[in-house]
């Protein structure tokens, strides 16, 4: 064909394994590739956290195949755990995975706007992951500087083992990831703006699409800044510049740098880093809004408020980065404004939470496994969110900074809540992606073990944090006054054993159901959005040669007078009712 394939979806269904499953231009295949990448990453990251928990409780234990964990290796573990989880799980699975697969289908498009770019974004991300993992296997091992990469530790090759080639690989990996994420965001935004089906007005888009769209905008604005910081850091490391490094000595020897500012790194990093938190959580918010409506058989409570809340959270997310830096000797007036703005995020977050509860209120709730995880998400979001306003107080933060209280806060709200979003999405969309249902008994077992387990791990950390237990200490038992917390720490580690073990129930269920699960109907959950009108799994062009035309909003459940308790978005009969009721 004499056509340029970048801009159009003119490519016919590909033949042959390589074109179909490896270098595929199909957004559905790319979505699954992202998903499996995240799955590999999440188990890697989880394994690293397990090593850390074991080391905290039994610091002198020798781990099979790994040996003793030295203090610097503990720092490597936490760096790699954080980096893998934040970038290659929480950013990759909800946005790259499910967003890629379902955004085009939910807006009635045949594919993403730029399929080749889409393919490149996945392969770029995969390359970033490989480069990151390679840091484990070079001289000196993985870097020590944490996922935030604070200078000057990250900027000096001589600063420690792992700060040589390992840190170079880490920075390179992040830069590669940025480029991949930017290509993805470009596709998401263009597709949402330009490829919606007839009748799919912005205010008829499912909240999942809104969340992916706003997340893509956040990524577009944030990743360029991280990339710039990474470039400056590499220059400091290799070209002798002094952007981030002041006059400093390593082992008593002057490094030759002068005048740089470690705070400049922190500003640039957190200008990216805080929106990144919302990049991780917004897709899960959109998804849970969707699921709560589907499984309560009720329209989402306050659709427009939900849309504006997503936008408000995205906007405020760029205004609050300074709350990560209260310890840096910040002007109290500046700290106060960051503090107020941070607490301001509580307003749209509360709007969302109350709307979720309003959706559940007097619904005919179906407690299927996706719904359980969605409710679990709301629970975790509230509990993890409540500790936010505490940390947003500069005065309290000076005490709580670097303690396990912070670990508890961001793991509950950014880590576990997002992961619950990913689980909910997996259970919800599995039938559409693979044509079979997942086993419900295993799914519920998985839910209860994970839900209780996650609370058992992270709730006690609030108390150890308030008690002054510090993060990044590989052997807290060496500190006299932290001894009293040994029992709680042991409990957390045992809870982690159980929770991690229960993830294998999920893994088994996932792969077993792919082959042996009960065959799924086209619309097993009786949902209204466009992915449920098409075949299971969807054909190459998503709708098998039919143009979807949209007449309704995405949450028409229990509409009075309708024959069933849900009205598909493409059902014209209710489009008239819509107008009679004077909606929109």
């Amino acid at each position: 064909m004499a056509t340029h394939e970048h801009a159009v979806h003119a490519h016919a269904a590909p033949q042959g394994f390589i074109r179909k499953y490896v270098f595929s231009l199909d957004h559905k295949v790319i979505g699954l590739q992202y998903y499996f990448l995240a799955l590999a990453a999440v188990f890697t990251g989880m394994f690293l956290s397990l090593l850390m928990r074991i080391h905290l409780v039994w610091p002198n234990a020798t781990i099979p195949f790994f040996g003793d964990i030295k203090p610097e290796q503990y720092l490597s573990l936490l760096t790699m755990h954080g980096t893998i989880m934040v970038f290659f799980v929480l950013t990759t699975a909800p946005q790259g995975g499910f967003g890629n697969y379902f955004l085009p289908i939910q807006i009635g498009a045949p594919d993403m706007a730029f399929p080749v770019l889409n393919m490149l974004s996945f392969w770029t991300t995969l390359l970033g992951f490989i480069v990151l993992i390679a840091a484990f296997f070079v001289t000196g091992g993985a870097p020590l500087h944490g996922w935030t990469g604070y200078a000057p530790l990250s900027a000096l090759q001589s600063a420690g083992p792992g700060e040589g080639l390992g840190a170079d690989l880490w920075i390179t990996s992040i830069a590669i990831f940025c480029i991949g994420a930017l290509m993805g965001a470009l596709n998401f935004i263009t597709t949402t703006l330009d490829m919606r089906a007839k009748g799919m007005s912005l205010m008829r888009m499912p909240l999942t699409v809104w969340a992916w769209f706003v997340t893509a905008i956040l990524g577009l604005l944030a990743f360029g800044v991280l990339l710039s910081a990474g470039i400056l850091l590499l220059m400091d490391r290799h070209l002798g510049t002094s952007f981030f490094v002041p006059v400093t000595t390593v082992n008593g020897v002057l490094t030759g740098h002068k005048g740089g500012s470690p705070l400049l790194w922190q500003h640039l990093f957190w200008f990216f880093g805080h929106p990144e938190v919302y990049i991780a959580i917004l897709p899960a918010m959109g998804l849970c809004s969707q699921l709560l409506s589907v499984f309560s058989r009720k329209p989402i409570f306050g659709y427009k408020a939900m849309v504006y809340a997503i936008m408000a959270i995205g906007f405020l997310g760029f205004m609050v980065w300074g709350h990560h830096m209260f310890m840096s000797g910040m002007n109290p007036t500046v700290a106060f404004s960051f503090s107020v703005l941070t607490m301001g995020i509580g307003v749209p977050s509360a709007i969302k939470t109350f709307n979720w509860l309003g959706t559940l209120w007097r619904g005919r709730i179906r407690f299927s496994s996706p719904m359980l995880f969605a409710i679990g998400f709301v629970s975790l979001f509230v509990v993890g969110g409540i500790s936010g306003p505490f940390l947003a107080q500069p005065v309290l933060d000076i005490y709580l900074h670097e303690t396990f209280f912070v670990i508890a806060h961001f793991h509950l709200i950014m880590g576990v809540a997002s992961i619950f979003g990913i689980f909910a999405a997996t259970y919800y969309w599995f039938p559409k992606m693979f044509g079979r249902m997942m086993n419900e008994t295993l799914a519920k077992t998985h839910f209860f073990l994970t839900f209780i387990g996650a609370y058992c791990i992270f709730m006690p950390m609030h108390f150890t944090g308030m008690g002054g237990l510090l993060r990044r200490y590989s052997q807290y038992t060496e500190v006299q006054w932290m001894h009293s917390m040994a029992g709680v720490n042991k409990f957390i580690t045992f809870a982690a054993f159980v929770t991690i073990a229960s993830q294998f129930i999920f893994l088994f269920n996932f792969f077993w159901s792919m082959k042996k699960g009960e065959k799924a109907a086209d619309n097993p959950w009786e949902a209204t959005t466009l992915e449920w009108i098409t075949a299971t799994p969807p054909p190459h062009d998503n709708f098998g040669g039919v143009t979807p035309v949209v007449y309704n909003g995405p949450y028409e459940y229990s509409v009075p007078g309708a024959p069933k308790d849900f009205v598909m978005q493409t059902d014209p009969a209710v489009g008239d009712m819509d107008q009679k009721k004077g909606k929109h």
Partner: protein
Amino acid sequence: MASFSTTATLDEPLVSRGDKGGAPPSFGGGDDGRSGPGLPDYPTRLRRARLGLLVALTPVLMLFVSFTSAYVVRQGLPTIDPRTNQLVRDWIPVKLPALLLVNTIVLLVSSVGMELARRQTRLAAVAAAARPAGGVSASVEGKTPWLEMTIALGLLFLYGQWMAWKQLAASGFYVSTTPSSSFVYLLTGAHAVHLMGGLVALLVAGLFTLLHRSVTTRSIVVDVAGWYWHFMAALWVYILLLLEFAK
């Protein structure tokens, strides 16, 4: 010309299904030119590509905004002299080589050439649509090779930047000499890398002529690359002003 993208609808199968055919559109577009899985028409493709470019320019802009903020912050920072324990300034203003002005003119002229090339390709796309047997690339013989000229000027600009770097080094300003020289190399280098991306796009468009790819596709590539090129020219002027007046 300006009305072209909205009014002149090119008969898409004629111009783009040249040699091998391909799957017929399984169904028509959605509303107002929003496409189905068939091949979208020329205005749709052009609009989508331009929208994509607009979105893609945002992170480029953010990258340079970020560099600028680092520039401003770093400029105000003193450093401690370890021998005397006094705070001193280590920011030595760089005297920019005059060659940069010549380079600026070269780039601005190339931007004009780019605009002429962009319009020329559009005309060719219209001509191809008007011809009954159109389908192969429209002939641009006998016309001014604006595209080639732009590529040549772009390469000349990059060469000029390289020479400016050499002049800087010759006058004692290396990357790590002073933070201001670090930024000069950083900003010019980052701009050059982005400009190379534009050059690659133009080379691809040029290659399309040789490969007899469809003239509409070529026109879209040239159009998008053209706007990118203008952005790069404006960005360069901004960088030059920043380096000259905020040093």
